[in-house]
């Protein structure tokens, strides 16, 4: 079925709001249309401006019906951000799909919510090596880095377009013309070079991982932080109920009780940061952190 001569080609472009997912898909859609294909490009961007994920389906061929690509039918997945690529990777055609990703990480504030000692960001832990191992063809490039070296990190999209151009059969000039007509006039030059670099890089093999991306996301899993036992003692007689600690506790685990005295209402949330004890004008709060010594092996 995949090799039906007239089958629709499916390209899925994903990233985070503000990265230029729509620019990439518009360039591709224009190129396909200029080449005489029927094209549909579909995106849902309700939350795009608020830092959520953005994705755009581009389908082209003699006649395109559905605006969206069925799961498992994506010929090429282009990811402008690493974790967004992983979100969609199961949509790739298992035997023939190509994965093209920028290794750049955009860590959402949501991933940095755990204040427990030793906590790491809740960011996708998968490494480029294990992912590339499982796809038919794949490129994990440092598109942002390459673009930054050329003088404008924002041209990373165009670097990815360069890589994409090696997998589709449109002439290089046609790509360059449409990109030149899409980007702001003063950055035509830089984008032309970004495209050429991305293209050259991807021509270096069917599966490639940039050196900077290699081993990514394993960076400091070795850092070890001893766990501590935290005890919060509040001397009720000294507390005058000013509620400074209640307002300033980052975990919001303190509250004023019926007698207007501070108390630790949610001890499980307390991370032992000691902020309350430093801020209390009456020195009514004492926080002690005792390391839990692990039993010798």
């Amino acid at each position, binding site marked *: 079925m995949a090799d039906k001569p007239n089958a629709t080609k499916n390209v899925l472009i994903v990233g985070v709001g503000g990265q230029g997912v729509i620019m990439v898909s518009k360039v591709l859609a224009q190129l396909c249309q200029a080449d005489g294909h029927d094209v549909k490009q579909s995106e849902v961007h309700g939350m795009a401006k608020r830092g959520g994920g953005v994705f755009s389906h581009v389908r082209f061929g003699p006649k395109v019906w559905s*605006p969206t690509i*069925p799961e*498992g039918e994506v010929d090429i997945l282009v990811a402008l951000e690493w974790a967004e690529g992983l979100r969609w990777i199961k949509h790739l055609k298992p035997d023939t799909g190509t994965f093209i990703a920028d290794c750049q990480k955009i860590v959402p504030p949501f*991933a940095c919510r755990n204040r427990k000692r030793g906590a790491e960001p809740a960011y996708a832990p998968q490494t480029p090596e294990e992912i590339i191992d*499982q796809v038919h063809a794949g490129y994990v490039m440092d598109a942002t880095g390459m673009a930054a070296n050329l003088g404008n990190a924002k041209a990373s999209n165009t670097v990815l377009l360069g890589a994409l151009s090696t997998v589709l059969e449109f002439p290089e000039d046609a790509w360059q013309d449409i990109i030149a007509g899409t980007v702001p006039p003063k950055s035509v030059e830089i984008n032309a070079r970004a495209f050429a670099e991305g293209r050259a890089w991807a021509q270096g093999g069917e599966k490639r991982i940039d050196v900077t991306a290699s081993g990514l996301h394993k960076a400091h899993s070795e850092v070890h932080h001893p766990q501590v036992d935290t005890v919060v003692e509040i001397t009720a007689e000294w507390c005058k109920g000013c509620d400074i600690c209640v307002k300033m506790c980052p975990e919001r685990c303190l509250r004023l009780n019926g007698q207007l005295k501070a108390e630790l209402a949610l001890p499980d949330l307390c991370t032992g940061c000691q902020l309350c004890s*430093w801020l209390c004008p009456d020195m009514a709060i004492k926080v002690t952190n005792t390391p839990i010594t692990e039993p010798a092996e």
Partner: protein
Amino acid sequence: MSHAQRQETAEPTAAGAARPMTGNEAIARGVWEAGCKVAAAYPGTPSTEIMENVAGYPAEDIHAQWSTNEKTAMDVAIGASFAGVRAFTAMKHVGMNVAADALMSFSYIGVNGGLVIAVCDDPGIHSSQNEQDSRIYARFAQVPVLEPSDGQEALEFTRAAFALSEKYDTPVFVRSTTRLSHTRSAVVLGAREDQTGRAFHDLPAKNVMIPAHARRQHGVVLERERRLTEMLSDSPFNRVEPGQGKVGIITSGIPYTYVKECLPDAPVLKLGVTWPLPDRLIRDFAASVDRVIVVEELEPLIEDALKAMGIAAEGKAYFPREGEFSPEIVHDGFANAGLMDPRSNAAPFEFAPMVRPPVLCAGCPHTSCFMALRALDARVAGDIGCYTLAVVEPLKSIDTCVAMGSSIANAVGMAKAGTETKPIVATIGDSTFLHSGIPPLIDAVYNNADITVFILDNHITAMTGGQDHPGTGRTLRGEPSPRVDFFELVKSLGVKHVHKVDSYDIATMQQQLREAVAHKGVSVVISDRPCVLDPVKIKGPAMEVAQESCIACQACMNLGCPALTWSEEWHEGRHKVQIDPDACIGCSLCAQLCTSHAIKPIAEPA
């Protein structure tokens, strides 16, 4: 869309040319081509870009405006129709709830100049508070609803809708969905029709709905529906696509494309008008096959009608009644119906993807408002806008959110119930306040409710992408207009305790809120700080975290500012914080929260 873009109304693209257009752009083009003279709307995803694009056509051709709400927009269009020109309004599905009062009676009256209503549904709830099916409104109001399947049809149906409206003396719906509205495909353009206006029809029996007139008009509406039903069996809007096999599919809109994707050779009755239904055409189609399967998103409107006609239609037994369809879902439905093999679900990647919820922008003026409300431990009746994002951690301070403009009256009810021990606060954005917040505030004053209303004036309709409203002092075409003064407005309603604050000054704002809450009766606090994204992107010098001073308490992270992340440095087992200088707009809110004074503007190179 910026004003600059809007104002340079390019010469409309020539007829005959094919251009990639979204469904919304194509609907706007259809409006212009039909010679429409007056268009009004209130923004709402996924419909917003329709009116923005209508405003891209020359002002001499068409008057385009933002109205304060959907009912007002509908009434403006109705007025233009009375006056004899073609008129248009667009809204999201829930906007129809607001406009419905005018629609229901106007259906009895009928049109003078053709009147077309674009309603955009949101199956899958990409950006809404429910997924109601607007086709039911069309049935309820007994007006025709056209359902295009792609950009080309969006243009052609919209254009044809005006002629249909005039021919049958009825308002006409064009129903889109998020998928159609936001999908780009090639559209061949036509020229603008020359529509000279008609004179006002001096017909009180038709134009003035008093009971005696309405009773008579109701009969006219029923007869109109009968004539439409008859005509639609032979109309090019509805077509039979013959195919192989004895299972016939009836479908419409975007689901038609999924049907063609899955079963390209099956016999299909494609309905371009889903209300009223073409009785004769459907019966003939059903008689030509052994089984009839209806594929429609959301409600079983067609299926139920077929069953009422005595046709053994199948549909919702295989296809969900909720959520957005996709080729996968339609495939699964056909598999359940025995028409296709099940999909193979060999998913090689088993891991759960990272959560990336939408967040308020870096420097969003709403951020500190909700920090303050959380610190107040108030019971907060929320409303709809960007600020609804404060319902989740780390701001987590909104307790309810119903529909546009609900917050203030919800707070009144909570106060009158007498069960609440916490202070009761309603939060409402500027655009929402003008949309439907003023009558409930009058209600609160009138009934002396002990509540605090927090008006979050960010000088724009932000959630839907930055549209002007009467509080911005600019119209849809970017022309200056008088600016609503919220402070004076609120005072004039009889509110005694009114204060304006800058939400970038956390301490003062907290103080003002505390005083407002302590005030018995209605108090209003207006936070006055522009949105950082629209109408202009605000970017001040970025702040930085001095790593040597940061104690990793992460109190600043409670803002949820997306510019704040963990750095590679640690303090007592916790990550210190750093600021992404490209994302930070320098609002200084985090610096105001930092107890160790670690956050300062990036030092200028000496």
